[in-house]
Every structure is written in C-alpha cells, then in structure tokens.
C-alpha cells in the first residue's frame, strides 16, 4: 500500500494497517510524537484505532530545538 508520509510517497507491506503499525514499521520513536492523519491531528488515544487506507496522508512531527 502506498502512503504519503511527511511529504514522501512510500510503500508499506499489507501487514501495516494502522497508525501504530506504521509507527512500528518505520521504527519511529519520540518523547512527544505528534501524528496528523489526512489533515486531522490525532490526540494520543485516537491513534490506536486509526486505520490506514492507500494514499493516506500522514504527518509525524515532534519538538526540535528552536528559539
């Protein structure tokens, strides 16, 4: 399945069906990861049951050093 993640088009295996699975697949971790799914910002609890479909647009953002 193809997804549009952080501005990049990537292929993920069929096994990746949810946001948590995508996070695990990409091996992402951050003390304060923020997830946006098809322009909708997900609160922490909403992530768990967020199901992915082909072509979904996902943004993974976090806090970085800034002034």
């Amino acid at each position, binding site marked *: 399945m193809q997804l549009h993640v952080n501005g990049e088009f990537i292929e993920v295996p069929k096994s990746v069906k949810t946001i948590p699975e995508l996070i695990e697949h990409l*091996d992402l*971790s951050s*003390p304060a990861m923020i997830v946006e799914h098809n322009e909708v910002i997900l609160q922490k609890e909403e992530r768990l049951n967020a199901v992915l479909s082909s072509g979904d647009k996902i943004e993974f953002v*976090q*806090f970085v050093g*800034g*002034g």
Partner: protein
Amino acid sequence: MLKIGDYQFNSRLFLGTGKFPNFDVQKEAVDASETEVLTFAVRRMNIFEPNQPNFLEKIDLRKYKFLPNTAGAKTAEEAVRIAKLADASGLCHMVKVEIIGCDKTLLPDPVETLKASEMLLNEGFTVLTYTSDDVVLARRLEELGVHAVMPGASPIGSGQGIINPLNLSFIIEQAKVPVIVDAGIGSPKDAVHAMELGADGILLNTAVSGAEDPVKMARAMKLAVEAGKLGCEAGRIPMKRTATASSPLEGVSV
C-alpha cells in the same frame, strides 16, 4: 512571581533550545540558567533516519513548561496549524506566535501576527506573541487579549541588543500584560538593560547556545536578569550632564 495566563514562574529567563553544540552542554546550560520555560520549534520527524536523539529525552519534562513557537509559518493559518500540532503533544497549551515577514531580518509580519494571535486566542491557547517594537502594534495585541507581548530588541540571532530602548519603555509603560523581550539579546548587558527598562522577562537562545562557553553564559544570563530586575525596583539615580562629588567638599585639611 511572573504570571502569564494561568502559569506562574519564579525565573524570568526563558531559554530557546536551538543550535547548542551538543545535548550535554545544552543540559548543563539549561540547568545553569535556572529557567522554567523552554522554547521549541515543531518539525517533521525524519522517517528514513528514525531514533535520532531528541533533547526532550535528556530532561525531566515535569521541571519545565514548554513554549513551542510557530517559526516556519508565513501566514496566520500556518501558524495556527503548527500551534495545534504542538498542542497535540500534550506537553503544553502555551504558544509563541512567530510569523516572519522578511527572510533577511527575520522581523515579524504585523498583519499575520495580529490575525494569528486572535485566532489562537479564540482556540483557547495561552498566547505569547513575538512582535516588532511598534508601540501601537503592541497595544493592539494587548487589546486582542494576548497573555504576553514579546517585542524584539534587535533581529533574531544578531546579538545587537536593544536598539530602541525608547519604544521598549513605551511598550512596557502601556502594558497590562507581561512584556518579555525576545530576540537580539547578545550579552548579559543587554538582558540587564531590558530588565532595567521594566521588562517582565527575557527570551533568548543564540546568546547562550552560540557563546564560546554556553554553560557559563547561561549562568551569567541568570544573574543578569536578577540584577536587572533588582536594579529596576531599586530606582536608579537620574543621569546628569555634569558631576556631583561623592566626597565632602568642606573640611579638607590644608
């Protein structure tokens, strides 16, 4: 006590987290500064190189309040989106509105800044707005209800200190909310200067992270902010063109 919206702080020094040589130095500098507020930017994670270290892992998240900025936004809408993303981290409900209108000077766009501040106030954020030292613009922001006004001393990262102390003092005199001097602070002298003018606090980043010894500079800035606050409260002597003796003129033995 510095009060901004529902938050209270003992320290009047807000510290940016950009451009430190490494996380260990940064951690030490943050400790030395005794700050309670750390600013951050919001950026995409690198999905191809995951698990890069993040400064948040190095610190006790409960010890600090987080002030994400909207840097990168060119419009009010982009700023609001970044603020909402930051909010979703669950780490904070404060936001520093920062909408740059000029790539060379990184000075703020007054129109988009006003618009973004109003939108974010309507969304229930605690809004601290980075602005120029335009006096009436600062008043307009207060009238919108922003929780703190943050006029720049000089361009971001320029280290030129306070170029226009008159405007800053006008902004401070008219202010009903805290005034945090943001941007342009280069050395402790500048921080003391701002506090002597009556500022409620200082936000700086490069002056510490870019110093030869960031940890020592962080400590210097902490002392400077305290010295400036005390100096302001203590009521300085007036400036006079000519001199006044400190030793008695009479009773000289000759």
